[in-house]
């Protein structure tokens, strides 16, 4: 039989992004520079709920072209929003894509939610979208993220030397990859 549940695990579920409902909270997360700098190499800046809504509309355009699949992460228990997960930059002819996961509030980190989200996202990428490989990018200073991806089988493949400059120091951009065959599918 087909797998019975692609969108849920023990504690969290993949839900559709809902800007009307979530923009206030997501805006609050963007006032934490550590969160923003862990998430990407872009300029860290706080965004208003209105700006968040606009960002979500842009992301939806990619989703309509099927180049991206965006999810809100919610706790099953009380439906509270804890973060987001997305598959993007999908190249259908080559069956490849990239992924990104964020847990917004620092009190929700270290609870295993990120790992559950990653497991859900990998299953969706490999079992539903039939992708061949996934890429993830982070920075040398984000040791937690490198370990996080490595635990699920990702391998560090590229270090773009000194590509990121922050707090007066230069850091490598770290690119990781996971092939479908290397994915540790759970029973």
């Amino acid at each position: 039989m087909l797998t019975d549940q692609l969108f849920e695990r023990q504690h969290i579920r993949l839900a559709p992004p809902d800007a009307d409902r979530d923009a206030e909270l997501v805006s609050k997360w963007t006032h934490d520079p550590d969160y923003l700098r862990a998430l990407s190499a872009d300029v860290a800046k706080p965004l208003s709920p209105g700006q968040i809504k606009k960002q979500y509309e842009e992301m939806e355009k990619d989703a309509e072209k099927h180049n991206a699949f965006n999810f809100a992460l919610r706790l099953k228990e009380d439906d509270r929003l804890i973060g987001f997960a997305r598959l993007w930059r999908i190249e259908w002819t080559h069956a490849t894509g990239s992924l990104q996961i964020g847990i917004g509030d620092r009190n929700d980190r270290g609870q295993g939610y990120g790992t559950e989200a990653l497991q859900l996202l990998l299953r969706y990428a490999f079992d539903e979208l039939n992708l061949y490989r996934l890429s993830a990018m982070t920075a040398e200073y984000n040791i937690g993220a490198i370990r996080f991806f490595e635990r699920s089988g990702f391998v560090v493949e590229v270090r773009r030397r000194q590509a990121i400059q922050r707090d007066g120091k230069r850091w490598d951009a770290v690119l990781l990859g996971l092939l479908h065959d290397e994915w540790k599918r759970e029973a």
Partner: protein
Amino acid sequence: MNLLTGQLVSLTAVNPDRDAGIIARWSRDSQFWRLAHTDPALPVLPRYVKQKLEERSIELQGFAIRSLADDRLIGLIGLYTIFWLHREAFMGIQIGERDYWGKGYGTDALRALLRYGFDELNLRRVSLSVLEGNERAMRSYEKCGFRYEGRERQVWAYDGRRWDEIFMGLLREEWQTMGNEQ
């Protein structure tokens, strides 16, 4: 010295009216397409290329590479993603005219582009990636000082097998110590 002129070529503006026909002809060369683009190979009409050039949405719309000897369009080159925050840019080059492969035209164009990137745009780093097996391109990049930084495994699917994408980078200091500053 002209920033954008080398020994063999000059980097000039792309002229959609004049250049679209030539660039469209390159699209009939499927091997060239695969080395130059990541989307599926496809022959395209001049009017399609012209429209893309005018929208500035074609890959590598940066500069036209023209041979100094006869002002002929032989390829395109550009810094196509610039991260201003970190002063890093990705570069790409394509030589569509096969007669000009392996004769130093690409390397000459690349040197001019690096001069532009480091001396005009004040970049700290120039990055590139190249399909596994494209030895001609890799030799040229190494000649210009690029260093190997890793490979994304099995990213591309062509001809029934998977191919790696090789990443290379050149730091400003490395470029300067190669004697490019004078």
